[in-house]
């Protein structure tokens, strides 16, 4: 081999090694880096701009966009006249200017569809309802006529109308349109709320009816003028083109967004369609099946639950009209523009990750409010339980223990005790003290429910009490009982069932699973599943069916059965004073909240109703995370939980709870014909076939709720699935008559003893 050859081989080796090293370094350097601006953010972001809509409007019933103009059919309640008036507005998005058009709708009319026509007019579907009244003023008969109105986009003048009632109603006597579109040729597409599309040409002559085969979820016209529908297939929502020439529905568009949940399509400007889902907004090109994700709703501080309409302007901005609901129930319309900007132009905020299995509406609302107002921090949400719940839980566990722990952890659906014991959560009492929050301002027993060894690991803004109720005349005045007392009570009576719909599993949940610490002494490590209480529970449960047959005919309602003592107990949650009033009505007499059997006779449990969360001990933004968390405990937020007619839980702040009680005791009156002030019910509540009017609460009822709340200092629903599996599996031979209760209890005792020993 000559020197040249040797040099060549050496060079070849060097080149090979260099290439390999380059590939390796490229692969390694690629890890964790995206196309972003270098600080972890994407290159471009959408920035929201909130605009107040200058319109007389309570409710937007219909909307159609034509270029940068949006036409809105709105309704407005007039306090003085007591009537609702409908208006038509043209809203110029570029100038943020609303112009009320001259069109007037007759009384008892409504707009069920609106779209720009091919000839530059606005096409509206108008329902005219006429009512025939009897002598007493009650509706005897009603008639509805459906018309197409052609309206000038300039001034709202009516250019023409056509009755299409027969065309749409066909053989039925009622015409209904759920979705309405006009294609590029001016043909009108009206979906009937089921699975039929009526197609009418621009001369209002019927072209055809197309049966879609599936329920039509949504209908939209693309930029190209084609009409698309969405319907649910085997893999979720599918986007399909309406084939007018073939008079059929085409195949689903490959690559279009699928999945489940709320999804809507709108006419695109720079792409065929604009897609909006609970996640965010994307552009869809129907020809290539490509989807360009624009933004997530939470990243632009929008609650996806409130999004009503979405559109795109010629300058590339996206707009959305939202209807924002407050906790009190009031709602306002808001217009939001989203402008695409380079990340470098948007001030960077420190990101706080909120990790949860699923996010509740209250937490979502607070995150959006926090992100809108806080200049330093921004909360980003990661929902682990979106697709595969178990896989999500595993991922959350892995993240929490390997340094990727979210800064704030939503505790809904998690066994917070397990994580608190692992040192994953931060003690929140020092934060409360540091920020001047006195723990005595809050219900100590509710805080205690989230304590471990005197440290607070979770906050609960509002809660309800999970309990079990019985007639006081039967169980006496008590706020708890032991398992033996409970079994003595139910076994001494000849009731049809212990609960309505009672089964073995419900008895297990009531006697054992919600009360597992009764059988396990974690301090000594001793179990008592082979004891008398457990064996008696097994024997008692054996009298009931494995699962209740919900298809069986119910001759009596729950209230009637409770009153006649055919059933003895009722499990439920008390989340308001009104609910207590109703439960007393259901039983027909005084009730005792005995809760779940417990040796300390403290079986009432705290259940969060507006989220619960913990702070990660490893968070790098503890102050920012706490700033968000403490907003849930603020006076302002806690007071916002006060509800006029019974809310979704009690506020944890004592003063706010007292304000709620004051509200509950406030009498409501009306003036009768003679001008006398007469007491009137605050609301009507019902259970099963029972219904009652709820009046202002008495001090005694308030006191009963206070006592009920004070009796709960534990949370429920945290029993390990391992234990329920062992009990269910091993108890089965007893229920089948193959083994005695004592035998299966001994096996359960042995297996659970291992579990307990291992966990100590």
């Amino acid at each position, binding site marked *: 081999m000559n020197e040249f050859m040797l040099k060549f081989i050496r060079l070849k080796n060097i080149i090979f090694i260099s290439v390999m090293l380059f590939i390796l370094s490229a692969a390694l350097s690629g890890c964790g880096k995206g196309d972003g601006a270098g600080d972890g953010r994407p290159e471009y972001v959408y920035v929201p701009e909130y605009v107040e809509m200058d319109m007389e409007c309570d409710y937007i019933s219909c909307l159609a966009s034509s270029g940068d103009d949006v036409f809105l059919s709105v309704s407005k309640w007039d306090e003085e006249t007591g009537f609702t008036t409908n208006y038509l507005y043209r809203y110029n998005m570029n100038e943020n200017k609303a112009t009320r058009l001259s069109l007037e709708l007759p009384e008892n009319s409504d707009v069920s569809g609106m779209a720009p026509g091919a000839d530059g007019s606005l096409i509206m579907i108008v329902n005219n309802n006429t009512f025939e009244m009897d002598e007493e003023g009650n509706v005897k008969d009603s008639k509805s006529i459906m018309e197409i109105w052609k309206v000038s986009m300039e001034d709202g003048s009516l250019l023409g109308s056509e009755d299409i009632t027969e065309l749409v109603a066909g053989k039925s006597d009622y015409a209904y349109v759920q979705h309405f579109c006009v294609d590029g040729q001016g043909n009108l597409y009206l979906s009937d709320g089921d699975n039929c599309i009526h197609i009418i040409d621009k001369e209002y002559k019927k072209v055809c009816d197309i049966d879609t085969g599936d329920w039509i979820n949504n209908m939209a016209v693309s930029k190209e003028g084609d009409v698309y529908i969405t319907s649910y297939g085997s893999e979720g929502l599918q986007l399909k083109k309406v084939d007018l020439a073939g008079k059929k529905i085409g195949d689903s568009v490959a690559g279009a967004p699928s999945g489940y949940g709320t999804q809507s399509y709108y006419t695109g400007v720079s792409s065929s369609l604009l897609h909006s889902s609970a996640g965010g907004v994307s552009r869809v090109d129907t020809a290539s099946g490509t989807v360009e994700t624009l933004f997530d709703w939470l990243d632009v501080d929008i609650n996806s639950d409130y999004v009503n309409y979405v559109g795109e302007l010629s300058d590339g901005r996206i707009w959305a009209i939202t209807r924002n609901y407050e906790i009190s129930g009031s709602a306002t319309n808001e217009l939001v523009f989203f402008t695409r900007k380079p990340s470098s132009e948007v001030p960077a905020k420190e990101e706080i990750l909120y990790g949860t299995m699923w996010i509740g509406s209250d937490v979502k609302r607070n995150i959006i409010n926090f992100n809108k107002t806080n200049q330093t921090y921004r909360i980003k949400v990661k929902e682990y339980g979106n697709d595969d719940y178990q896989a999500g839980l595993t991922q959350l566990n892995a993240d*929490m223990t390997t340094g990727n722990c979210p800064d704030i952890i939503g505790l809904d659906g998690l066994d917070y005790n397990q994580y608190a014991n692992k040192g994953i959560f931060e003690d929140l009492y020092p934060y409360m003290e540091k920020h001047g929050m006195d723990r005595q301002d809050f219900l100590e027993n509710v805080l205690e429910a989230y304590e471990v060894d005197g440290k607070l690991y979770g906050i609960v803004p509002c809660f309800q009490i999970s309990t079990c109720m019985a007639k006081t005349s039967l169980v006496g005045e008590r706020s708890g009982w032991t398992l033996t007392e409970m079994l003595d009570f139910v076994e001494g009576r000849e009731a049809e069932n212990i609960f309505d719909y009672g089964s073995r599993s419900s008895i297990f949940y009531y006697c054992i699973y919600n009360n597992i610490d009764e059988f396990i002494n974690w301090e000594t490590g001793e179990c008592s599943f082979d004891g008398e209480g457990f064996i008696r529970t097994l024997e008692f449960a054996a009298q009931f069916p494995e699962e209740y047959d919900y298809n069986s005919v119910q001759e009596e309602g729950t209230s009637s059965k409770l009153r006649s003592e055919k059933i003895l107990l009722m499990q439920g949650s008390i989340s308001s004073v009104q609910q207590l009033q109703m439960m007393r009505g259901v039983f027909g007499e005084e009730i005792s909240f005995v809760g779940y059997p417990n040796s300390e006779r403290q079986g009432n449990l705290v259940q969060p109703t507006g989220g619960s969360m913990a702070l990660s001990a490893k968070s790098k933004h503890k102050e920012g995370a706490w700033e968000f968390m403490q907003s849930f405990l603020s006076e302002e937020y806690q007071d916002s939980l006060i509800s006029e007619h019974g809310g979704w839980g009690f506020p944890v702040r004592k003063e706010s709870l007292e304000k709620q009680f004051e509200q509950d005791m406030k009498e409501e009156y009306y003036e009768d014909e003679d001008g006398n002030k007469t007491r009137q019910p605050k609301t009507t509540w019902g259970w099963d076939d029972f219904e009652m009017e709820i009046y202002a609460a008495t001090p005694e009822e308030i006191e009963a709720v206070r006592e009920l709340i004070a009796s709960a200092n534990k949370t429920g629903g945290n029993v390990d699935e391992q234990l329920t599996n062992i009990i269910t599996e091993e108890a089965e031979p007893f229920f089948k008559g193959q083994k005695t209760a004592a035998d299966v209890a001994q096996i359960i005792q042995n*297996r659970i003893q291992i579990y307990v020993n291992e966990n*100590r």
Partner: protein
Amino acid sequence: MHFYMKRKERKKKTGSSPRTRRGKLVSAGYLLPSAVGVLLFFVLPFMIVIYYSVVDNPISGQFVFLDNFIMVFNNSAFRQAAVNTLTFSAVAVPLAVVLSLFLAMMLESKIPFKSQFRTFFLSPMMVPIASVVLIWQVLFHYNGMMNEVMGFFGADKVDWLNSSYAQVVIVVLFLWKNLGYNMILFMAALSSIPKDIIEVAVLESAKPNQIFMHIKLRYMSSTILFVTIMSLINSFKVFREIYLLKGEYPYPTMYMLQHFMNNTFGRLDYQKMSAAAIMMAVVMVIIIGILFLTENYFGKDVEG
């Protein structure tokens, strides 16, 4: 001086040869991926396990030295798992070695249906573990075939999987699963024993048991060691079958060390799990060390 110069010259010649240096570099280059792999996937995880075992938890990472080891050692579930695992291994491993050796010897002799027997004993290796467990459940369930047969002879039902008989079932399952593989290894070892030595022993009027004890057993000592180590490792893997039969918390006599580790992992008790794993690894190293020493002692004169 002359001698010194010469040596130095020679040393220089061998030490700085470009060919040798290049050879070393090439060797290192070829070894590098493998070394990186070993470091990444074996050494690093082991270091992490050691780290986890001496901190209070992976989140706060406070050094607690041997506290986790003491806590795990005092844990009654761990002790029970250790006793169960040791008992099981002490019974199952010798049985697996002796019975498979016996079977191999039997198949070496002139008996009919040898290949059918061989296939029969090897077949459990081909059955997926989930099916094995299903078969075992059908056999040893409270209403299973075994109790049906016993009932036919008037015996009372036995709750095989929820009583002290549970470990017997597991030993039988383990043997059924492992005998075939061990048997093949022994058959290979038996066939590699030099025939001339055995012929000489026969000519010297050696009895069959003398041939077995002094020739065959000695020549097979390394195979016996290998089979013992493999059986020992497999005896720790019996957790898989028990887990499929009875889940995370079986009847106490079936609760093995790997249950303890699996369950603590599931509950994120990494420090507990790591301490248990290190203790188990130490015991394994000691046992395997003893086995190596034994093999060295018995097999040194035939390996040389």
